[in-house]
């Protein structure tokens, strides 16, 4: 396993250590880190993934992580490297984006493996926003059997604004075919200008609503969607579409995309309620 564990406190004071920063070399020169919140061994471990260009320090994520830990769940909240060594900051929309869905899925897989390497045989993937979509992408691509459940909060597709997606995809594919690696700038998600390599952009652009819905239909594990009915980030009719395919879904009334404020507790409650129904297995 291409990982190394720095778990100093846990090694020295295993009983007292509840949180450590974990770092893994994902690719040459690209290390990534995660916060490992240690919970009860008899409960499933949670891999909690942040949203688009965010880090594990995103409020919604960190609140939920600590809430779950408080309830005894081990939580690993990584920060996707996005091809940046030891990324610690949310990446600006205008940055040169060289990352793509494949690297993201690979890092998710690495972190699942890392959990497994640390004795967690029941893993629940919880994502927020774009992270929910990335976890969904992972689940669509030969997920590890230790992954037992999936919770997608504020699930969203790869929005590209008013750009006509087929045309964009075609253009990107053309650039890729022509090996033109110059950065292309198009809207993506909440970024109005998103400079990216054609490959990276194309990997995200392909995840439109139909593809997400398709992925949801084939998720091999138990799943739950927690959505806010005042989420302005969502595409038009997205909630209805989700309801239409009859996915397990909780709609938090009055909650926005970030489930902040009083809705943090709704999010936690619905998540805990789901986790309690997840089968448990001792790690050792």
């Amino acid at each position, binding site marked *: 396993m291409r990982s190394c564990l720095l778990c100093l406190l846990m090694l020295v004071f295993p009983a007292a250590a509840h949180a450590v920063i974990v770092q893994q070399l994902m690719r040459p020169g690209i290390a990534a880190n995660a916060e490992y919140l240690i919970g009860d061994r008899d409960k499933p471990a949670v891999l909690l993934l942040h949203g688009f260009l965010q880090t594990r320090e995103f409020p919604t994520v960190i609140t939920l992580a600590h809430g779950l830990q408080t309830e005894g769940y081990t939580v690993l909240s990584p920060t996707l490297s996005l091809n940046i*060594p*030891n990324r610690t900051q949310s990446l600006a929309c205008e940055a*040169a984006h060289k990352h793509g869905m494949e690297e993201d899925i690979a890092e998710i897989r690495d972190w699942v493996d890392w959990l497994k390497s640390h004795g967690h045989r029941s893993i629940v993937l919880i994502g927020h926003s774009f992270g929910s979509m990335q976890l969904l992408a992972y689940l669509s691509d030969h997920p590890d059997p230790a992954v037992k459940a999936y919770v997608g909060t504020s699930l969203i597709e790869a929005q590209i604004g008013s750009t006509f997606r087929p045309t964009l995809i075609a253009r990107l594919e053309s650039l890729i075919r022509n090996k033109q690696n110059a950065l292309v700038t198009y809207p993506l998600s909440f970024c109005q200008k998103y400079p990216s390599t054609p490959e990276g952009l194309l990997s995200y652009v392909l995840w439109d609503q139909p593809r997400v819905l398709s992925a949801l239909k084939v998720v091999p594990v138990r799943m739950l969607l927690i959505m806010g009915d005042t989420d302005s980030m969502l595409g038009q009719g997205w909630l209805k579409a989700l309801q239409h395919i009859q996915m397990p879904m909780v709609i938090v009334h009055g909650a926005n995309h970030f489930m902040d404020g009083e809705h943090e507790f709704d999010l936690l409650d619905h998540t805990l309620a789901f986790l309690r129904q997840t089968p448990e297995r001792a790690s050792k």
Partner: protein
Amino acid sequence: MKWPHAISIKQVALAFIAGLLVLVSLIGGFAAYQTRGVTYSLERHNHDAARSELTTAVQRLLNQTQEQAANLANWDETRQQMVQPEYYTYWRDQRVYESGILPSHFVRVALYTPSGSLLATRSGEIRLPARLPADLPLHQAASWLTGEADSAVLYHAFPIYADKHRLSLLGYGLIRLDFMPALLQQEALYFTDKTSVRLTLKPGEKLSASKLLSALEFKARPDLDRLHFQTILSRTLLALFILLMIAALLALFAYHRLLARPLQRLSQDIDAMQHGRFSLQSGRSQTMRIIELENVRRSLYDYQLQLRELHGSLENQNREFHSQARQDALTGSHNRRAYEEDWEKFRLDLKNSPQGVAFLLFDCDRFKTINDTYGHAKGDRVLSLIADALVMALRANDRLYRLGGDEFATFLSRTTPAQAKQIAQRCQSLLEASVFSDLGINEPVGISIGIAFCAADQLEHIDDLPKQADIAMYTAKQPGRNRIALYGEDTERASQTLVASRETSALFQALASPGMIEMHYQSIHALPGCKVDYYEALARIRYHGSLVMPDAFLPVVSSRRLEAGFDLAVLHQIDADLSSQQLPSGIGVSINLSAQSISHPEVVSQLLELSRHSARHPLILEITETSLITQMAEVRTYLDLLRTVNYRIAMDDFGTGYSPLRYLVDLPVDVVKFDISLINKLGQDNRASHVVADFARMMSEAGYSLVAEGVETDVILRKVKSLGIAHVQGYLLSRPVPLAEVAASRAIPHAGVKCVT
């Protein structure tokens, strides 16, 4: 120390104002000096503040750069470029500025590999070094400045690690910025003059950041508050000075108007008062605004008014006194003093305006007789009437002068001989018309008029006019004349007048020229031995080689009232004769003196002077008994005085005058000289002889020493001896001889003396 001359009040005011200005200037200068000190202190403070401020600005810039470097080092995208520099230029030229980590394109950044090589070389990076300096401690941040072509550039190199624990070095970053624009664009530079900030570095020269401050040149920005303060102070001082100047000028003006000019006017008024030019009109009209000065002016004006009134009064009195002094009290005409003054002035005026001049001399005919006959009061009245008539006869501007006694004169200007004669005739006519009978005078009273004329072209002879008029007047008095004579016309036709003229001329010349009077001495013999006891000094005038005898010139002396002058000349000559000591010691000298001379101070003074000879020569004063002695008390006083200096007083010509007994009683007479008319009576055998003899005997017994004059016969000599008369004098014994002959005869005892026994 000697004070300078008196200074004027203007000078005092100017000095005061100048002193005040100097004082204010000194105060202003002191204030300016103090202000300069404060200004210098403020400048120092300002400079220090600028230094501090610049230090802070430099440090801020360095800190800012370090902060930018730290942000860059910790920035995920920076680390991304170190690992995947494919889009390095996008990051370098766009992202670092979009992200706000670097403020502007003036600040550039470049990334270097761990070996110090530039991460990627593109055309836009020519201003960044291709390699980092090897001598820098690159394990930590380092700053330095380098001189480039046109500016000083600040570089800040910093390491970039893969993790926050600085365990894995990814490379280096280098921030480049133009130092001066970056430094000066800071808005916090208040005290520093941005245009003065200089950092001089040669191209390629390197300067560490630690030495930056010492290499930085700068100037403090002028403190606007201080400049404003200085401007205000300068303006205030200038305004103060101008105000003081204006105030000084106003004060000077007010001082001049209120004090200096009034005081000057007062001074001028006082000067004018001193020179008699003070105008009461000006003093009355111009009031002064200062109360004290106004009081002084009023006092001065009042004083001047009073002084002027007093002066006017004194002038009136003076004029009156002057008039009185020049007026003859008896006749109301001008007196001799006025004559002399007017004549002198007239002579001077003639030099400027030559004109014909006539001099008229008036003399009353037989006035002595009238005076002796009718008394002095009527004589004076006659003179007054004559004067009135003459004044009426003269022209309006002609003046009548009374020269003395009955003699009047006038001088006529702008006239001719004919006009002068016409005026003279008018005088006589008016006098003839005058009524003298009211005075009890039945005889006609007439005047003789002598006229002398001097033509305008002969004014050099103007001084001869009085003398010529005198001659003409004597000509007029000659019997058979019409009592008006014009000199040069009438006098040449009268031979007798020539004689008179000769005697008069001799007299006047003798009076003017000492030595012309020659004394002859006639011996007076003591009886019974006929020894010469003393000599009577008798005057002669030697004129052109011949002697003019007394009977020829004494009337002139009498008529011209020249007695005092003549007697003075005689006394001088006697003094000279006695001083020659030709007369033997012990021989006395008898001196004839007119009664009028006795009261003359100069004569008395000369007699006192002559008395020094009395020890050697007993002196006797002979006073003619016929002389009119009008001031008996005054004459007696002088005679008493002279007796104290050993003069003996002799009554001359006794028996020929008036009131002889009164003279004997009132005057201190020692010797009585019987006139020849009485002595000759002794030669007759009649009652008159007895009277004279008895009188002589009585006089002798009364203690008078008697002298018999005119003894010319033996008979009379014997008679005189018989009467007990002590001295005799006469041709019988000796004739008057010159002094030289007296001396010679004294060498022969009793030479020529014929004395009966």
